[in-house]
């Protein structure tokens, strides 16, 4: 970054400019091989145990939205970050930053939903912190959650492990969360039926691991969406990725709203979906497990890993043409999670 640059909303987009900031400003300062892996959760060794450790902050606007609120989103989000390393999430911390004057009743609803989400995911909230800041110093409520989970023996999931020939699985429809948030914002006035897909995916991941211990890559395509996540995998594994537009499931209402608002669903956030890169021998078995679960009922094999062009994601369009899918550049929707 140049001397007089300011931090822009783009720096929080999860796209290209966020990655550049992490590489230029953070990796050199916190220089260590665990962080340098840049997976959703860090993998740390304590004695013989392999643990996954992850953190995430939630600033979603509005705090209540169809399908959830900032509380269950904060629990599910960190649970999912842990689950994407194959870990069984165990313990969470919760940090609350609350604006002076925030209604206690709303806080109560948020906390109750966090409790329910933790129960559903089978994790314990074991430590926490609360700060209240003067009116205007924060917008309503921000939540940070961190989590620790145990990685089962033999599980080696990493963004570096995609190999040519591997299949790319997507667990369900794209863009539900982002569009649910956007259309529930003040000023949009859409009578939208779209609800967020926020959900904990850890149980689903364990069921997938039961049929394929050697899942190569798992990612949840949150900020930056499918397009950005696939680019991350292609970059980390130094492979190409081919996907077919017609195989990517999108609900008709979500597709319509994306059309209307000019958004590309490939870059819209999801909060209850995963991408799995699986060896071709196991892809069908994992797909069957996904489809048997309510959280994966719309799962599809959307493409495969290829040798070249390394670092690139290529989309075959519905009319049979091809184009690249680049990483998101610029902020598409601020405060989506």
């Amino acid at each position, binding site marked *: 970054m140049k001397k007089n640059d*300011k*931090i*822009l*909303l*783009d720096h929080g987009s999860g796209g*290209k*400019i966020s990655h*550049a900031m992490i590489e230029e400003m953070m990796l050199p300062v916190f220089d260590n091989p665990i962080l340098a892996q840049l997976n959703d959760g860090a993998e740390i060794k304590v004695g013989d145990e392999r643990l996954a450790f992850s953190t995430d902050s939630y600033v979603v606007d509005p705090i209540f939205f169809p399908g959830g609120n900032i509380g269950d989103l904060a629990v599910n989000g960190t649970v999912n970050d842990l689950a994407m390393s194959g870990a069984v999430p165990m313990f969470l911390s919760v940090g609350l930053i609350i604006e002076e004057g925030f209604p206690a009743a709303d806080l109560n609803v948020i906390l109750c939903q966090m409790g329910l989400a933790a129960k559903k995911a089978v994790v314990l909230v074991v430590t926490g912190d609360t700060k209240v800041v003067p009116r205007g110093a924060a917008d309503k409520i921000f939540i940070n959650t961190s989590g620790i989970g145990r990685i089962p023996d033999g599980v080696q999931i990493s963004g570096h492990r995609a190999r040519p020939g591997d299949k790319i699985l997507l667990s369900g429809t794209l863009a539900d969360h982002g569009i649910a948030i956007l259309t529930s914002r003040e*000023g*949009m006035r859409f009578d939208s039926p779209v609800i967020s897909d926020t959900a904990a995916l850890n149980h689903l991941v364990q069921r997938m691991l039961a049929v394929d211990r050697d899942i190569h890559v798992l990612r949840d395509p949150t900020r930056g969406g499918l397009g950005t996540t696939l680019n991350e995998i292609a970059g980390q594994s130094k492979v190409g990725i081919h996907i077919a537009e*017609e195989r990517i499931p999108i609900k*008709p*209402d979500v*597709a*319509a*709203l994306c*059309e209307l*608002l*000019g958004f*590309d669903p490939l870059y819209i956030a999801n909060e209850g979906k995963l991408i799995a890169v699986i060896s071709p021998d196991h892809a069908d078995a994992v797909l069957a497990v996904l489809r048997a679960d309510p959280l994966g009922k719309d799962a599809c094999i959307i493409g495969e890993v290829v040798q*070249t*062009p390394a670092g*690139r994601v*290529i*989309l*075959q*369009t*519905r*009319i*049979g*043409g*091809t*184009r*690249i899918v*680049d990483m998101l*550049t*610029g902020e598409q929707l601020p405060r989506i999670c």
Partner: protein
Amino acid sequence: MSIKHLEEYRDPELARRLIDRIQSISSKSVGTKSVRLMEVCGTHTVSIFRSGIRSVLPDGISLVSGPGCPVCVTDQSDIDAFIAISRMDHVIVATFGDLIRVPGTDSSLQSERAGGRDIRVVYSALDALNIAKQHPDKRVVFLGVGFETTAPTIAASILTANFAGLTNYLVYSAHKTVPPALEVLVNAPDVHIDGLILPGHVSVILGSNAYMFLKTVHRKPCVIAGFEPVDILHAVSSLLSQIHAGKPELDNAYPRAVTPEGNPKAISVMDAVFEPVDAAWRGLGTIPRGGLKIREAYARFDAAIQFDIQVPEPVIPNGCACGDILKGIKIPPECALYKKRCTPVDPVGPCMVSSEGTCAAYYRYVSNL
């Protein structure tokens, strides 16, 4: 809500048949020169790239992107004026999202917003009007950028403000009009275009008759097209047939939305508030009657009149080929800055930053590997 009706315009089978037809007409013209077709509108450009249409066309047919990206053709002095307005005290700037990142001579709206200026992204001028109602102590300036597609709603916002007696709502009009720019393009000696895909949205307002001069005076094959892959393939097929037969037409291939007369109500609202003015287009220079200014009767809503706007002497960045790219003379990879000094993260010219810009579309959708 459903977009089921759009599915047929994306139907792979229908697309396949059109591609076959294009190939068949194209092969009949073997030996003749290659054909250059211009899609005038930025929405077409994005649709063409997103659906991979270029990759399915036979060799010898090239689609060239034109000047139909409103942000891209906005003159540097207007961008600098937007920034100058955003720096004024007690002002809220309301703008379409596309303008936020466009670099001015020494700043951008994005930078000004990060520096604490009140700049809000809206989806319609009517949202800006609501902001003005909610903030009677501030002056709310809507940045009016766009073609005949957006101008009527912005005109309607001024009429509404006038009717409601709102005194703190203003518009800076940098609107452009499409037919005069097409006239300039087809007359330009350095622009070689064999046929035009005309903009669908603008045509909904203006009607197909607005382009009759292209057929009668300039004998240019033209098609008004919708924005789905099948629409665009149909347009290419129609243009090739016209070129092959040597019979230029004005083909309305978007009759589900475009009539010969257009939308008279929208036109009358636009005419009530705006009048044609000679306007500076980035890359194309000053186009006679190529822009819209607010009529004197509504001068109190005109930010260009109500504010004393001081802008720096505009500096067009050295080497930026946006001008030639907007005329279809160059393609982005032929610009020395493309993907080097100029990227969507750190854009030099507006064609790289607008979602409808040709450079952004190349960057996002075309692999150079």
